[in-house]
């Protein structure tokens, strides 16, 4: 076995382990399958660019990747193109309209075709009604199970801020979830 194939296998194992987790965060954070896929791809590119143990992650690769995907999602949500897509601006042209249609098709498949599809769709839609910061905090703390310290590192803010945002986000969710998710 060559070192290349060793590394390839290592990289494949690495991806199989953590990409679904990053994808879940990105989907709930951004609310769209296509954007979530972009976010994970960008995170993987940055991981490869930095390389484990050099400028990138050292012992805690997962923490590094979560922090990275949080940043990437923030960057994506600030892009003018994303804002145009989110507002359904038809001026973005045929190519983007086609892209949007494909994203919608995949999203419907992702959300509804399987056992928990309806629950997933309702979760994502409920989360989208929170502010971006509340969504980050609730996703990291409640859905992904990170500690306050880990979430504060990922969000690059004080631990008290994480606690407050989580509390506010959960309070807001409880106003809208009874008939949507728990029902």
């Amino acid at each position, binding site marked *: 076995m060559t070192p290349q194939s060793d590394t390839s296998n290592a990289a494949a194992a690495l991806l199989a*382990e953590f990409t679904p987790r990053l994808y879940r965060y990105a989907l709930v954070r951004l609310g769209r399958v296509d954007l979530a*896929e972009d976010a*994970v791809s960008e995170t993987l590119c940055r991981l490869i660019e930095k*390389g484990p143990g050099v400028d990138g992650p050292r012992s805690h690769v*997962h923490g590094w990747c979560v922090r990275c995907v949080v940043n990437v999602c923030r960057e994506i949500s600030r892009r003018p193109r994303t804002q145009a897509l989110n507002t359904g601006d038809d001026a973005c042209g045929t190519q983007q309209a086609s892209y949007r249609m494909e994203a919608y098709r995949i999203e419907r498949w992702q959300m509804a075709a399987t056992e928990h599809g309806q629950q997933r769709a309702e979760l994502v839609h409920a989360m989208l009604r929170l502010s971006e910061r509340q969504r980050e905090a609730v996703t990291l703390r*409640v859905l992904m199970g990170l500690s306050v310290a880990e979430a504060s590192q990922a969000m690059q803010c004080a631990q008290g801020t994480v606690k407050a945002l989580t509390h506010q986000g959960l309070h807001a969710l409880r106003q809208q979830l009874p008939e949507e998710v728990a029902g």
Partner: protein
Amino acid sequence: MNDAFEQLDSMREAFDSIEPAPHQQERWQTDVVRVVDVMLAREVKEQMDGSDPVPWRTMWISAAAAVLALSTLLVNPLSQDGLRERLAEARSALPTFDFLQHAEDDTAVGSDVAMNDGPPAPELVTHSESLAQSLDALFANLSNWQDVLLMMH
């Protein structure tokens, strides 16, 4: 209060059931593995040219170490049996030490790496021994998986 907990459980259940589309997961795997291959090939070539003194083997070892860290840190929650199994997988994914015994790579080209029998570079031996010792220590301390996770940090 019970309703609130049930809501959170439902949310977590819905969240955990989210998976990337299979074709997308496959694309990530293929693309990243291809990129890693290209990077390795480039590093080998640069070493051959003498234009870059960075040891490409370090990257390879780091990738294996990253798999080990991920294997142990990403599974949540992780039972003791699960950890033991994953550590065994991680250990078996590190055949790198054999290679390091033959790690004079001046004649390496692309994916066809010729291995001479010269001594490995001292820093690589130290690195590999350190990794091996860490793994052995992990295996020896599996009585409490939380301790093992702390060691990984």
